[in-house]
């Protein structure tokens, strides 16, 4: 890892900030994060940077909202080339790096967002839904209490259900659901299974089985 090796893989040493990410980080969202930062920090003087990065961010926002279209990736690359070639200063000329390198190494994630409205890392809120697996739910009511918008219905011994319209996808239920039950699941790219009928009794999972 030195100046020249990093340049070869399409990155740069920069000041030396290094973030180690894993499969729980969405590369499209990371590219969007950098472009949001650059849109705010562009001085706005020259057109390729001010207008080019703004349009790239619009496309990335669409992709993360589940409205990506065929040709978005090609458009991102076309914009990137002009922003890199024509911008007045290094902010503009290096701005497309995060987009180009995430497309280069993680194109499958872009395509999953665009073609299947699926976010493999489960980060993009618009493409994720939270679902309580009726088989696992033991009606401990923790998620019901913690949900900030009261989107979870259920009661003592009653299988809990998330009202998909109310749910703001904040992820609290997933955080608080006890590990031994692990009833809350994060789904992406596939429809939420139909909720069990109102008042379905909990299926007691024997202590031994857990």
């Amino acid at each position, binding site marked *: 890892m030195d100046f020249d090796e990093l340049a070869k893989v399409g990155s740069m040493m920069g000041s030396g*900030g290094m*973030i180690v*990410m894993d499969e729980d*980080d969405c590369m499209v969202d*990371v590219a969007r*994060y950098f472009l949001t930062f650059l849109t705010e920090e562009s001085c706005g003087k020259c057109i390729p940077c001010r207008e080019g990065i703004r349009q790239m961010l619009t496309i990335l926002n669409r992709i993360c909202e589940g409205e990506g279209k065929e040709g978005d990736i090609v458009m991102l690359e076309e914009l990137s080339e002009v922003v890199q070639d024509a911008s007045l200063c290094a902010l503009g000329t290096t701005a497309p790096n995060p987009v180009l390198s995430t497309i280069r190494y993680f194109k499958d994630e872009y395509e999953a967002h665009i073609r299947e409205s699926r976010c493999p890392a489960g980060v993009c809120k618009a493409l994720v839904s939270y679902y309580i697996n009726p088989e696992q739910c033991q009606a401990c009511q923790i998620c019901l209490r913690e949900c*900030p918008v009261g989107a979870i219905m259920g009661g003592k011994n009653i299988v809990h259900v998330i009202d998909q319209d109310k749910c703001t996808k*904040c992820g609290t239920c997933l955080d608080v659901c006890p590990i031994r039950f692990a009833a809350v699941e994060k789904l992406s790219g596939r429809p939420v299974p139909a909720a069990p009928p109102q008042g379905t009794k909990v299926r007691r999972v024997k202590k031994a089985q857990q």
Partner: protein
Amino acid sequence: MTKNLSNVNQIIAKYQGDQSALIQMLLEIQRENRWLPKPVLARLSQKLGIPISQIYHIATFYKAFSLIPQGRHTVSVCLGTACHVRGAPRLLDRVTDTLKLNPGETSVDYKFTLKTVNCLGCCALGPVMVVDGEYYGKPSAKEIEKVIANCD
């Protein structure tokens, strides 16, 4: 209002009316008054011989400056890369709900201003919220409410 104008003269004197210290003077005025009142900018323009258009461009270019009074309490959420992947967007949503403010806005009673910043340098604590210089790492919804509540 006259208080603002008097300490402007002191600040100008401190920098011997040097035009290139304009940004340093604005920073001091912002720190003392928590905003840049119009008459103060007009006074600076007149005393330093700098066009008012240049002063307004600077005052609206830099994030540190505000042309309306800032809240007594400043709440900042770090959106640096590390905090982002550690869940800063979710923290920001919670803080926005608690304060009923969007980033950059000040509450009508001028009690709170919500800001976003990039990389405060304590990523291991991330996601980080700072209230009046006090750091809070990975605050839960309850903790956020508690901290906001006991800001007088």
